[in-house]
């Protein structure tokens, strides 16, 4: 085996390792959406049990926080947020954008829970926030999952091609 052949085989081994690593990373990325959904579901369960866990706000704290926004205003904002977030995800699906599922949505949704809680209408609006979160996160997760799966198939095809080439070259060398 010449030096050139040895170095080529090493490069191919490196390429194979890189491809395997890329497939592993893509698999992990495809599951990230599920983790985000699980985190949001856990947060929502905590919020649902909030009345039993958290002590009620004292009048002093309420006075310090000031007048809360009206529930109609928060609901209108929630609908605008849901509409724009769904549009953004659909845009990403159309452009096959590789942007991953963002945990920031959980932050926004927790803010909605907090506002409804401070306005004293959380129990009436809990399901609306839950439906918003689940819709946005499921759409994002589905997009990332399909995108990652397509990439994984591409990488697996390249890997199969590389392994076939490596096998052929070994056969020739023998």
């Amino acid at each position: 085996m010449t030096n050139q052949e040895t170095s080529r085989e090493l490069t191919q081994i490196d390429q194979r390792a890189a491809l395997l690593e890329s497939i592993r990373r893509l698999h992990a990325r495809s599951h990230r959406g599920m983790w985000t959904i699980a985190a949001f579901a856990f947060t929502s369960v905590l919020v649902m049990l909030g009345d039993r866990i958290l002590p009620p706000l004292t009048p002093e704290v309420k006075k310090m926080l000031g007048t809360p926004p009206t529930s109609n205003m928060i609901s209108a904002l929630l609908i605008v947020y849901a509409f724009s977030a769904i549009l953004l995800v659909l845009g990403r699906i159309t452009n096959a954008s590789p942007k991953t599922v963002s945990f920031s949505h959980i932050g926004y949704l927790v803010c909605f829970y907090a506002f409804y809680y401070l306005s004293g209408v959380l129990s009436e609006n809990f399901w609306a926030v839950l439906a918003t979160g689940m819709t946005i996160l499921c759409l994002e997760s589905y997009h990332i999952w399909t995108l990652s799966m397509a990439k994984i198939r591409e990488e697996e095809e390249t890997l199969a091609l590389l392994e076939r080439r490596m096998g052929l070259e070994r056969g020739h060398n023998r």
Partner: protein
Amino acid sequence: MFQSIATRSIIPVGLAVTGFVAICCLSLYSIMKQDMIDEAAQSGRNIANTVVLSTRYAMLHNDRQHLGNIIANIGQQQGVEHLRVFNHEGLISFSRNTSETGQQINKNTEGCSGCHSGLKPAALLAAEKQTRRFKNERGVEVLAMSQPIYNEPSCSTTACHYHSQNNRVLGMLDIGLDQGPLQNSLALMRYRMIIFTLMILVLTVGGVAALLNRSFFIPLKKLVDITSVSVLSDAEKELESGFGEVSLLAQNYHSLVVRLNDAKEALARCHSCNKTKADTENT
């Protein structure tokens, strides 16, 4: 299953439409529920105010019998769960339920805490703080309103009984209304909205799926079937027109196969021609 174009097209559309319609319906229901409760509270406050005004004359003349009769008669009205008047010290002076008369009200309970939460009781209370919702001992959802009975010059100057000028609030009228009819209306509205939402979802997602199926998936399936067989068959004619871009693709594919077949035939002819030529030359 998740790799087919049909699934990949319908899932995001179905999810986005279903989710958004559900969000809108849930928010709309919550807004309408709040509006109906506010309206019921407003009408409850009006009733409480009417009771206070109708008892004013009896109070000014300290006519306790007359006052008791008014409370008992109004309390018998359908939908009134409780009706009581308590004095400045929190003692129930009159009640629809006579067994309550003379009992002391806890100032820390909901309905009282709005004014009595601070060191000094508040003399004025915002309209929304006069209202509270709870389930009573019979399990009935009650919307209760507390209407303060304010001191007036005629109260502190009449000869029959005397209230100090410093007392701004002489007592409270507390009325509780059964929320059963309101809850029934809300339940009816909820069922109607669920049916309406389901109909919208079936029409939207079903309509999109049917249109995609008719104009894209069926021709695509035919195209796949045609391109999967090696020999051109009559099936390709089915795609020659009427399916837009997919028909055009089928025509291009057809012409490509025809050109390839022609080239193959020409090559074969050329081969046989060359072979005959070589045989002739050899002989």
